[in-house]
């Protein structure tokens, strides 16, 4: 043991003799190890982010969403230019009646309306839904209550408003019990929901949801008061859409049955929507699997790139060691004359490379641990100098700024182990060529 300590000490002494040279040689390894850890951390963070999003949608949920078919008119009714599309109440019934693995189903109808209280008004998203909606979307009540089943059956004109809506319309008043006006009707406020972070858009089918401008009323009330026609007046023109349901969120009884159930849902809906693709079936669990696959691909690709930089670092070490051996040819000759065997010479130089690479590895790991902070710095830089203050706009932009790298702790010893291995591999050739020098020739050198 003391022998090993002595050998390592001698190696460090040699390396410290040329501090600048040793430092520069180490840089390759430092950067390589750091980038391995950082790349994997970014991959882990992206994956965690994707997982979080998916879990928010519910791992056992299947979300069926109405999609407006592009361009042409799907169906006309009453010979007017009305676009009819989307999920039907009959779809809801068929799905809940025929598929045994579905334990709950929440129908949702959304319209954009102006909501007024006394003199205040704002544009809100009016969501016709059932009592399930609160839990399914991870919302929480701040004051009052959410909608109940009896609200539905009694077709009550009650509403639950989001926090932002409450702040805008009611300022400092307590909204509970007051009446707000949606269209021609008045609704009594029975509850206020807490603020909730927006969820991101998933794929092309689910747009990002900003829950803070919502007003929730019983879906049956909405359908009874407003019907299925949604007329929008915009800058001189008028569009009309006929939609029964915007979304049905179905909860499946078990993770394992999610995928078969989703397939069954697709087949069922295909029958009632033969021509148009006016709906989309979003299965968060599938997205999770996709995210996992993407993560693995990322890890392999990013990891390989980082590994290449490690190899380059190793080549740098080999290069310097070969030069060092040449420089110290005379010394090698002297040691051999004094009794050093070939293996002693190999040991001496190999130890130097391993200490060099290992030190680089440790420093790289130390920097790697700073990845989350460095990433914040990069985000700050991009925000202020590249995007000039305009952040979240695009989906990619949001993804970048929401990303939190998570250090995969297994990557630390792995990256360090790789650096030591590179030290060994790049040191072997110089060490062996040093050992094979002819002592007589070596003594004559220089």
């Amino acid at each position, binding site marked *: 043991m003391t*022998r090993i300590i002595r050998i390592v000490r001698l190696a460090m002494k040699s390396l410290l003799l040329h501090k600048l040279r040793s430092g520069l040689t180490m840089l390759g390894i430092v950067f390589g190890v750091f980038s391995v850890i950082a790349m994997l951390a970014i991959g882990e963070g992206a994956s965690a982010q994707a997982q979080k999003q998916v879990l928010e949608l519910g791992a056992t949920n299947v979300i069926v969403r109405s999609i407006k078919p592009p361009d042409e008119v799907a169906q006309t009714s009453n010979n007017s230019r009305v676009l009819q599309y989307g999920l039907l109440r009959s779809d809801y019934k068929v799905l809940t009646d025929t598929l045994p693995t579905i334990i709950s189903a929440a129908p949702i109808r959304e319209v954009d309306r102006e909501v007024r209280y006394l003199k205040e008004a704002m544009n809100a998203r009016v969501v016709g839904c059932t009592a399930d909606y609160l839990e399914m979307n991870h919302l929480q009540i701040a004051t009052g209550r959410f909608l109940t089943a009896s609200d539905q059956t009694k077709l009550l004109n009650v509403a639950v408003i989001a926090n932002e809506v409450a702040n805008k319309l009611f300022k400092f008043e307590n909204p509970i019990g007051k009446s707000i006006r949606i269209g021609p009707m008045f609704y009594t406020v029975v509850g206020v929901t807490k603020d909730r972070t927006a969820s991101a858009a998933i794929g092309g089918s689910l747009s990002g949801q900003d829950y803070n401008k919502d007003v929730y009323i019983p879906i049956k009330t909405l359908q009874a008061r407003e019907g299925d026609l949604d007329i929008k007046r915009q800058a001189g023109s008028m569009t009309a859409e006929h939609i029964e349901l915007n979304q049905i969120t179905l909860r499946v009884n078990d993770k394992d049955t999610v995928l078969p159930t989703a397939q069954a849902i697709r087949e069922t809906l295909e029958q009632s929507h033969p021509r148009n693709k006016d709906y989309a079936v979003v299965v968060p669990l599938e997205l999770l699997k996709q995210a996992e696959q993407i993560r693995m691909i990322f890890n392999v690709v990013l990891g390989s790139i980082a590994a290449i930089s490690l190899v380059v670092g190793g080549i740098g070490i080999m290069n310097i060691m070969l030069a060092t051996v040449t420089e110290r040819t005379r*010394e090698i000759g002297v040691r*051999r*004359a004094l*009794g050093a*065997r*070939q293996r002693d010479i190999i040991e001496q130089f190999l130890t130097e490379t391993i200490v060099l690479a290992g030190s680089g590895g440790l420093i790289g790991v130390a920097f790697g641990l700073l990845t989350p902070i460095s990433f914040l710095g990069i985000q700050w830089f991009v925000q202020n100098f590249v995007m000039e203050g305009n952040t979240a706009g695009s989906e990619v932009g949001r993804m970048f700024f929401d990303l939190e790298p998570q250090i995969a702790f297994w990557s630390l010893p792995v990256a360090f182990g790789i650096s030591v291995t590179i030290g060994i591999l790049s040191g072997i050739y110089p060490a062996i060529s040093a050992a094979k020098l002819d002592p007589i020739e070596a003594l004559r050198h220089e």
Partner: protein
Amino acid sequence: MRLAAQVVDLTKFYDLGSVVVKALRGVSTDFPEGDFVAIMGSSGSGKSTLLNLLGALDRPTSGQYFLGGRDVSTLDDDELSLMRNDMIGFIFQSFNLIAQYTVLENIEVPLLYRAGYPAIGREEREWCIELARMVGLGDRLDHRPFQLSGGQQQRVSIARALVNDPQIILADEPTGNLDSATEEEIMEILHNLNGQGRTIIMVTHEPGVARQAKRQIMMKDGLIESETIQEPSFSNH
């Protein structure tokens, strides 16, 4: 009288393809314990080749080399290295100290390569310090070679050569890089060592230095041309 070393009909040929260089053509001589031999000869006479063989740095093409009773000529590289470590103390013309090591660490180097790698403990260190004192450098143990004069470096070299209590001391032009005053100092140290019973084999091209040995061997064309035995003289030239 015991022999420290003995060479019997030693030859060394180098096959360079188109020509064979016959560096040694059959050298035989005895080195009794306590001998002090100077090997002389012009360039190409074979004296360097003989020194390399005596130093177990190379193997002969034919013939035998007995060192401490063993035939060294058939040993492999590892065994030769152990032989050198155990039996031979080298002194070089250009001192060949390791620049990054202190005086004490330089003296300790042969201890690093002993068979079985025994620990270097306090006893070993005391022995090295004692040797340093013996050559007059007891107060410069933590100095580096660049802080020493040529003569002082050569003295460190001598102490290093003695660390493993070798059978023979091989000196290759030990005073070649030294001025005459220092040369005297070094030769006096060698004389003292020889007086204590050490066997010293020295290669030199300076007759004045050679005369200070007990025996002079003259090499020519790969053979021993002549041998002179005389009383060692301490004269300067």
